[in-house]
Structure formats: structure tokens, C-alpha cells
């Protein structure tokens, strides 16, 4: 008798649990056609905490400001009716597993009709997988496009990526290094992430045509803390151009060990690891560190300077604010697609998004190609104090290229 009671109690408990969860999970759906005044929900899962947490806040700011601007102008036009945008933000904790669960939650719980992405292939690829599997359009602003494209051999169906093309991006390091006198010898430090592998191969491939020779390449997993043996070998190779593709904490550790081992190349590129907040992590050693950028005041954008100026006090004069601009543009692209779709039906938005052609945004003119990529031109920016000055291309430069990198070259 006791056993039967237990079994029934178990069954009752599980049924109650299911029902309770069902009650918690139910919510109202947002209208999909014109005529409804319901907000149009856009969802985003951002690295607000964790190792990539430095990238989350500027992206969030860009999304929020764009949504506020569109709502301030009456909302997004959906089939002749102006509807407000509603942005739902979730923290991915820089964890791909959490990216998947939060992206699904944005679709299923928050009823997002479209998703806005974040940064780097490890976060953007699972995000894009959710978009394709749930058939919800999603666009990401800050993930190198070739690595992203290569993660899905069959081609992305609902996911889009707007950023630089690594082939062009890797040439920037050589073209900008041409601005100063070097021995054209290159040392590479690349992690084993998608972009580390892809870009490492591209630097090796493109160096000869650009007149450079890769004399040393170190490869290591993300999270490596001891770079001393690699640094010593790079120093011994005599390379005066040093390029690294690592995450921010690894870049700071690498720079400190370069300094302590007395390796001071003429041009030093921490790339992904040196984009945002590098002086906070590496201190004065960051001075002169150069990375690729993706926006200049004169790159053909429309209204970008106003967004940039409004944010540079908070996110710095450099890539932090460029990330705000890029993210802002993603909302513009998505809002444009919703308007052209005339509906919040995901398939209609997806079709319109894929047809985006020559759209003026605060970032640049955006055209999405058949492979769901939109490529924006890469630039080179150098840390000078707390700011990142555009040093290449020369005609868009906002400052002079300092070489050798002062932070690493300084005595003491």
C-alpha cells in the first residue's frame, strides 16, 4: 500500500511540475501582421559576464540606442502601421551552451521575431545554429565572416553576419606595417579558435604577396597563461612585426611576458585581444598596440559620427565605440527588413533581410550577399593613451602611426 502511494505521489508530483512549468512558460504572442500595435520583439544574447564580458556592454548600448531612436520616431513600419520595437537582452555568460539556451528562450519565451547577435565565432556560431534550427532571422555584427561562413558547409539559412572579411583583414596588418620601416619578418601568435586557425593560415598565405615572411608561428589553446617559450622563440627569430589572434585575457598576459622578456617589435598587433579595454588589462604596455578596426568617420556611413560622439565618453575613443556603432546598424538593418517584409513573420523578415542592398547605416553601406555575409572594410587603429587612433588607410587616418610600439619599447 505504501509503495503504491509513493508511485502515485511521484506521478502526481511530476504532473504538477509539468503543469506548473507550463503555467510559468505561457505568455502572450505578439501580432505578426500589420494593424497590431503590439511591440515587435527583438532578442539578443550578449556576453555581459565571463571572459568576453568586455564586449557585451557596448553592443547592448548600440542596440538600445537604435531601438530608442526608432521608437522615438514612432516605431517601425509594419505593413503601414508604426509599431514600437522591444529589445530583450539576456546574458550569455560568454558560454556557447548558454548562448543556445538563451537564444531559444528569447524565441520561445519572449516571442522574439528576430535575433541580434554578439561577437566572436564561438558565440556567434551556436547563436546562428539556433536561428537556423528555429527558423528565426538573426544578424550578428562583430564576427569575422569567413570563419562564421566556414562553420556551416551547407550554408546558413536564417543567420547573417556583417563584419570584415578575414582575407582583407589580414592584409591590413601588412599594409599598415608598410607605413614604418621594418625587416618584414613576422611572428604569429594564434590560438586554436576558429578565427585563430583561419586567420593564422591567411597571414601565412598572404605574407609573401605583401612582401613579408612569417619566420615564427606559435599556436596554443585559449586560456594559455605561460607564453614565455613562444615569446623567446619569436624574439630569437628577429621578427619586427608581431601579430596575435587571442582573446583579451590572453592578450594581456602575452603583452606582459613580451615586456618582461624584452621583446619589442616595431609593430605589435594583439587583434581580438586588444580591441576593447586593453589599457585597463595591460596597463602602459598597451601604448602602441595596433588592431584592425571597422569604422571611420569618412567610410561612407550616414549618421555614424553622431552615434560615435554620443558614446565615446563612455566607451572610449576607439573600438568600444565602434562596436556601439556596428550594433546600432544591426537594428537599422533589421528594422529595414521588417518594414520591407510588411510583417513580423520570420520567413518574410528572413527573405527581406537577405535582399538588403546598399542600405545606408551609421556603420557603412550594407549589402548582404547570397552567402548571408555583408563585408565592411577593415581599418587599423592604434592605442595611443586611452584612445584608439585610426592609422590606416592613410586617407581616413585620424593620427600618426607610432613605431616601435612605445609600451613594449619603453625602458624600465
Amino acid at each position: 500500500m505504501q509503495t503504491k502511494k509513493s508511485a502515485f505521489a511521484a506521478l502526481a508530483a511530476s504532473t504538477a511540475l509539468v503543469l506548473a512549468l507550463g503555467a510559468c512558460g505561457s505568455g502572450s504572442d505578439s501580432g505578426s501582421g500589420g494593424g497590431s500595435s503590439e511591440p515587435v520583439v527583438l532578442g539578443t544574447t550578449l556576453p555581459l559576464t565571463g571572459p568576453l564580458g568586455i564586449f557585451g556592454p557596448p553592443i547592448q548600448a548600440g542596440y538600445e540606442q537604435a531601438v530608442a531612436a526608432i521608437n522615438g520616431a514612432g516605431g517601425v513600419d509594419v505593413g503601414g502601421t508604426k509599431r514600437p520595437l522591444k529589445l530583450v537582452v539576456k546574458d550569455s555568460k560568454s558560454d556557447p551552451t548558454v548562448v543556445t539556451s538563451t537564444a531559444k528562450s528569447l524565441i520561445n519565451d519572449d516571442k522574439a521575431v528576430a535575433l541580434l547577435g554578439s561577437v566572436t565565432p564561438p558565440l556567434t556560431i551556436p547563436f546562428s545554429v539556433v536561428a537556423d534550427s528555429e527558423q528565426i532571422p538573426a544578424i550578428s555584427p562583430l564576427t569575422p565572416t569567413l570563419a562564421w561562413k566556414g562553420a556551416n558547409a551547407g550554408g546558413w539559412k536564417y543567420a547573417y553576419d556583417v563584419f570584415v572579411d578575414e582575407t582583407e583583414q589580414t592584409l591590413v596588418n601588412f599594409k599598415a606595417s608598410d607605413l614604418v620601416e621594418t625587416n618584414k619578418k613576422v611572428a604569429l601568435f594564434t590560438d586554436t579558435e576558429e578565427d585563430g586557425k583561419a586567420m593564422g593560415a591567411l597571414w601565412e598565405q598572404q605574407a609573401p604577396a605583401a612582401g613579408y615572411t612569417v619566420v615564427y608561428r606559435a599556436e596554443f589553446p585559449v586560456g594559455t597563461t605561460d607564453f614565455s617559450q613562444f615569446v623567446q622563440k619569436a624574439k630569437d627569430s628577429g621578427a619586427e612585426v608581431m601579430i596575435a589572434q587571442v582573446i583579451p585575457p590572453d592578450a594581456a598576459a602575452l603583452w606582459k611576458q613580451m615586456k618582461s622578456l624584452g621583446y619589442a617589435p616595431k609593430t605589435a598587433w594583439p587583434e581580438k585581444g586588444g580591441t576593447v579595454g586593453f589599457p585597463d588589462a595591460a596597463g602602459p604596455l598597451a601604448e602602441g598596440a595596433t588592431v584592425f578596426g571597422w569604422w571611420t568617420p569618412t567610410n561612407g556611413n550616414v549618421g555614424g559620427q553622431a552615434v560615435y560622439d554620443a558614446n565615446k565618453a563612455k566607451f572610449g575613443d576607439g573600438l568600444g565605440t565602434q562596436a556601439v556603432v556596428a550594433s546600432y546598424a544591426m537594428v537599422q538593418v533589421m528594422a529595414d527588413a521588417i518594414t520591407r517584409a510588411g510583417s513580423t513573420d520570420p520567413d518574410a523578415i528572413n527573405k527581406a533581410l537577405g535582399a538588403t542592398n546598399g542600405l545606408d547605416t551609421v556603420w557603412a553601406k550594407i549589402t548582404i550577399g547570397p552567402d548571408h555575409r555583408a563585408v565592411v572594410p577593415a581599418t587599423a587603429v592604434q592605442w595611443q593613451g586611452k584612445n584608439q587612433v585610426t592609422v590606416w588607410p592613410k586617407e581616413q587616418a585620424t593620427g600618426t602611426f607610432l613605431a616601435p610600439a612605445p609600451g613594449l619599447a619603453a625602458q624600465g
Partner: protein
Amino acid sequence: MSVPTRRTLVGLAGWAAILVVLVLLPGRVERGTQEVLLNLLIWVGVAQAWNLIGGVGGQLSLGHSVFVGAGGYTVAMLVIKGGTGWAAGLLGGALLAALVAWVLSFPLLRLSGVYFTIGSSAVALMALAWMVTWEWTGESRGLNIPLEAVPDRAVKFRVVAAVAVLTCVAVSLVVRSSFGLRLMAVRDDEGAAAALGVSAVGVKRWALVLSAFLTGLVGGTVALNQVSIEPNSMFGLKWVVTALVMVVIGGMGTVWGPVVGAFVVYYLLDRSLEDQPVVQALLSGVLVIAVIVAAPGGVVGLVEAAAARVAGRRTRSRAAGPTAAKITSPAGEGVTHG
């Protein structure tokens, strides 16, 4: 039919009924609810599989993320490179995880107590370091299972539900079996168990292998759910640490403890407080400490104690009737059992 056999059959009928309810859910609940349940069931599976060796067996393994990863990566590799279906991949992942556990058991089970825990965590860290540099499995880039090779949402949910229920049934059967009694005897006093002829290493080895098989099975479903997997998300210590917390909060060594613990940690803490990461982390820590100090038996232990108190009161009130009055001592002292 003997009482233990009848109890086992009734218990199995209960789990079968739960499985039927879960299998019928897709299409009857909202997608969001189904997704929450799916993740909850994955955590039930991981926690329950760990409970087999950690709770019932008393071996606090921190190496179980290896089995999650082995299961997940095997499914992905078999589907992508072997061209097999996902079902064969799941079975292959579980078998490989069991095989890995069997091999690891030889060095690990030479250790006991805290040394076993440290040894198993070292294995997990080594596996993670290996996977981020192993080119064949995509290094730290990981693997992407083609979407067309992954079961649809409803089938995926049913598979996860079946695996979660299977882990619960396995633990339920183990604790009622003679093997389970030997395992618990080893947990409670290894020396005494050995003196009674129980092979402590043998019992622990098979418990570890069974636990790893189940964990590998769950890991395979994680890969099918994630589609895009990489070493840190599959081999990270997060799996085993979270499972341990769930089992401690729910009740170690009990069948329902991991289920309750998964609900408390995943649903009440993780999901409900996802916008408050600091509060979430603090609450998890405080909750674990509070449970260890105030209720070492976890939530299930508390409920069982409360139920026993209620049952005791009923027994006493019945005993306080006319017949009982006759058998109480002249001084009126009764015997109570807490």
C-alpha cells in the same frame, strides 16, 4: 509475488507513467515550456547519473564531465564523419563513455576519498586540455552537426525524456538490488564490507562504468540539442560541479534527490534569476552551505523527516487510544521513534 518484487514493479510502473506523460507533452505545451523541460530533463539525467556513483556509491567524482564530453563528441563524430544515424551515435557515445570509465577505473580506484576526487578532477582537466588541441575533433573550434542529421524538436524531447527517466529507473533499481546494497555497504564502511566478502573495487568499478554509460547517453543528447559543440561546453567542469550541487541540494543517494535538486538549481536559480547573475551565484553557494549544515539529507531528506514525524504523530495518537492506555507504563512513559 514477494514484497520487494511487487515494490519494484510498482516503482517501474510509476516511472513508465511519468515517461508516458512526458512523451505526450510535445505539441501539448508551449515551445518555451518544452524547451525548459528539455533542459531540466538533461540536468536530471546528468545529476542522476552522477548520483549513482557520488550519492549511492559515495565516490565524489569530479571527472564526470569527461563522460558528458565523450558521449557528445562521439555522437557528433559518428554522425559527421561516420555517417551513422543519431540513435546509433547515442549508443556509441554511451558505450565509449563506459569504456573510458572502465579504463580509468584502474588507476582512479586505487585512490579513495579526497584523493579519488582530486584524481578524477585531474582526469577531467587533462581531457579538456587534450580536446582543445586535438585536430581530428576540431580542436577548440569543436564540431557542428548538420541540422538535417538532428531529430526534430518533438523527437529530441522524447529522447531526452526517455534518457532522463532511464537514469532514474537505473538508480531506483540499483538501490533495491543486491549490487546496490553492496555498493552502499562499501560507501558506508569499506572495511566492514570487505570483511563480509564484498569486493569494494569491483563494486565501485561497475558503479562507475554504469554511471559513465548513463552520463555518456545524456552527453549525446546534449550534443543533439546543442548541434554546435566545442570542448569547453562539453568537457568543462560546469557539468559535474552543477550535478554535485543539484544532488547535494536534492538529497544524495536518493532517487528523487537529483530530480528535486535539478528543479531547484536549474529552474528556480538558473532560469528564474538569469538576469541577476551575482545573486544567482551567491544564492547557489549559500543554499549548498545551508543544506550541508542544516539538512545534510537535502530537500528529500527534509521531506522524509517531516513525513516520518507526521506518521509518528499518527501512530502515537492511535497508540494513545484505549488499548494503548492499557500497555503504557504506570508512570505513563511512552516510547517514541523520531
